[in-house]
């Protein structure tokens, strides 16, 4: 999966129309609420990555999600 595909998957999980980049601040995304976090957890679960709600409290930008996905993203 490319980084662009990952960003699109994240946007779909959040049902967010905003264009996301690594610099996007998570708290600036309206859909990044408790349901948004659960949706992202579900998405990461499908990638084989277990993440807890507490982990999300430490994340600040979309780059943190990219880092979490790690080698699931090409390059």
């Amino acid at each position, binding site marked *: 999966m490319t980084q662009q595909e990952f960003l699109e998957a994240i946007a779909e*999980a959040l*049902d967010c129309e905003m264009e996301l980049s690594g610099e996007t601040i998570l708290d600036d995304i309206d859909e990044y609420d*408790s*349901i*948004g976090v*659960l*949706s992202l*957890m*579900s*998405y990461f679960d499908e990638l084989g990555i*277990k*993440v*807890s*709600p*507490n982990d999300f409290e430490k994340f600040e930008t979309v780059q943190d999600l990219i880092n979490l996905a790690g080698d699931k993203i090409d390059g």
Partner: protein
Amino acid sequence: MANALVVGASSGIGRAIALKLSKNYQVFAMARREDRLKELKESGITPIPFDVTNLNDIEKTIKALSKEYGKFSTLIYSAGVQNIKPLRVNKISEVEYLYRVNTIAPLFFAKAFASKSVVDKDNYPSMLFISSIAGEKPEKGIVAYSASKASLNAMIKALAKEVAPVRVNGIAPGFLETEMTKEYEHIYNDEFIEQIKQSYPLGLGSVEDIAEVASFLVSSSAKYITGEIIRVDGGGAL
């Protein structure tokens, strides 16, 4: 001793109920995981490996058991799956599986159990289904699960009218630490459990608390109770 069939007995609430009933019933414990069922043998429980999602095999399996071991006075359906997923990430295959286990299979277990060739009419026959407080108090993030349990609740009440004098009841547990909820331990983490302990007036319950009420509901002491879904949640849904 009367025969009791406990479905979903390899762990959690079903296992606790099977063990509790084994003192007064000949218990048949049904579940997918044969290795886990075997552990119940030392309590005199007969393991019946079966996957409840094989809907076409439910009726013939129950009838075959009845023919081999005698009729059943009690059916307890405790199999269930949870799916913590917001609506936007629900998948058809996952929701279909959820409904198959939580709603459709219990209907066909009820159908099989209510058959004259299966139900032991002379021993205060009853069915008991393990529901959830989510059926009455749905929550965001578990839309499909809540709906499946609400459907089960309606089924319990309709069955109570249709199959009387066989009694049909349900138990709606609150949050409990079981293998099912442990699958979501990244969500049901220590902080969540602490919140439950604080918000439930009676704190966190155990599977044995459910088994106690189950034992009463299927006994002759409850012979005038049908169509009831009893919350056993330490006041959590108040």
